[in-house]
């Protein structure tokens, strides 16, 4: 990819994010961001899940396979899990996923995790905005995307 085309791509490129959001916190946080009329990027497709601990690495790989430019997983802050320890298990598991994806050379910025409580609408908006900005710079995700 030569530089000039990259610049134009950055301008016209709208990254697509698949966001797996815990229903007890981040999903509500994203609702709060909306209800509070916080302006933030509309690039994330939210998928509500019962707990960040329920995210199978398959979901992440599959999202990238189907063409997601970034994958976000957002759950409850440590200590706040509705199921006591789901987010701790998620943290360990997803740390390994992150390391593995980096290891095979997927751009490390494309996979992200955040702790967003139901009260943190503003933080959710920030997380998504930052993610979108970083992905704009990276351009489309082609490494793990299925090519017909």
């Amino acid at each position, binding site marked *: 990819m030569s530089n000039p085309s990259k610049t134009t791509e950055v301008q016209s490129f709208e990254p697509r994010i698949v966001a797996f959001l815990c229903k007890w916190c981040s999903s509500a946080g994203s609702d709060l961001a909306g209800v509070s009329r916080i302006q933030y990027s509309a690039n994330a497709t939210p998928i509500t899940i019962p707990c960040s601990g329920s995210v199978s690495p398959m979901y992440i790989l599959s999202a990238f396979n189907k063409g997601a430019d970034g994958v976000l997983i957002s759950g409850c802050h440590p200590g706040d899990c509705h199921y006591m320890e789901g987010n701790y*298990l998620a*943290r360990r*598991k997803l740390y*390994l996923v992150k390391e593995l994806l980096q290891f095979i050379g997927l751009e490390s910025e494309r996979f992200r*995790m955040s*702790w967003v409580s139901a009260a943190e609408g503003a933080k959710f908006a920030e997380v998504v905005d930052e993610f979108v900005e970083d992905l704009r710079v990276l351009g489309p995700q082609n*490494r793990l995307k299925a*090519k017909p």
Partner: protein
Amino acid sequence: MVNVEEIRDYAASLLEKEEVKAVLGFRRGSASAFAEPCTITEVGEAASLVWDPTCLNNLALYLVKDRKQQAVAKTPDNRPVGIVAKGCDSRAVGVLLQENFFKREDVVVIGVSCEGTGVVDSNKLSDKLKGKTASRITFSGADDINVSVYGDETETVIPAQEILADRCLECRAATPTLHDVVFGDTVEARDFNEPFHAAKEAESASEDERWATWEHHFDRCLRCFACRAVCPMCYCHECVVDSTTFVVTLGTSAEEKANRIRWCERSANTSESAVYHLTRAIHLAGRCIDCGECERVCPVNIPLRLLNTKLEKEAFEMFEYQAGHDIEQASLLSSFRDEDPNSFIR
């Protein structure tokens, strides 16, 4: 030095005393200079057992196969099985015990120390011989491996360190920790490569270089599934990447089969093979005991072991977890600590 007669005698006595129904071991085969797996059930067969650095296979796979067979057998034979195990193989038994695949009394581990060596890496050997076949591999001592090349008159002497498998050079437990008996000298640390050397080297490349490497490898995958078939830890009845094996019986429904998610297609594409190999790697996190079988059997030599050791490295460094070392411990992914890394999370 391991005296193979001791292994033979021990195996024979296990069979003679009917303490086991069979002993899994190695014998010389007709197919190559490497040893092949064997299952002996008669005392007399014990004499065919061999032991040397051409004994590559992780025989724990056959413990798994036996359990699966007995589970569906009309008259199951659940008597214990003896297994000749290297350090890594014994850790595989450890993980299977940890996962309650069978009980400790179901298996007699005939541990064999790799002492100062390990096993020969068939890829490194192929590199040395530029694809030619070794017709005979012998060992003059700990340091040298003599290889007779098929079609050549001569015998090549190769320093052991140059063709021992990476996993052996990096091995931290060359003597089986879990065993009923152990043959050979117990060795603590060996002066080869640091642990996780190959994974660290792969990590040090740039992101683009790393992707170029793995894109190249994923693209070459034939999807013969030998890596999965040979792995003692890949014992799932239905593999997550293989939705077609789901059986519609009276207890299941057509909808279940129809709605089975196809996580990856059967096409050997870069993207689909990436999903397969990465899924497999994650599923083995904290379970891979680095026997290197996946990498050994790969017909196109994808360095699959790197994916697993990368995760074992993280497990060790970040979570102080080593697969197969403690059969009582909670598994890597079902446990956590407060001090687990958190800084990568926004």
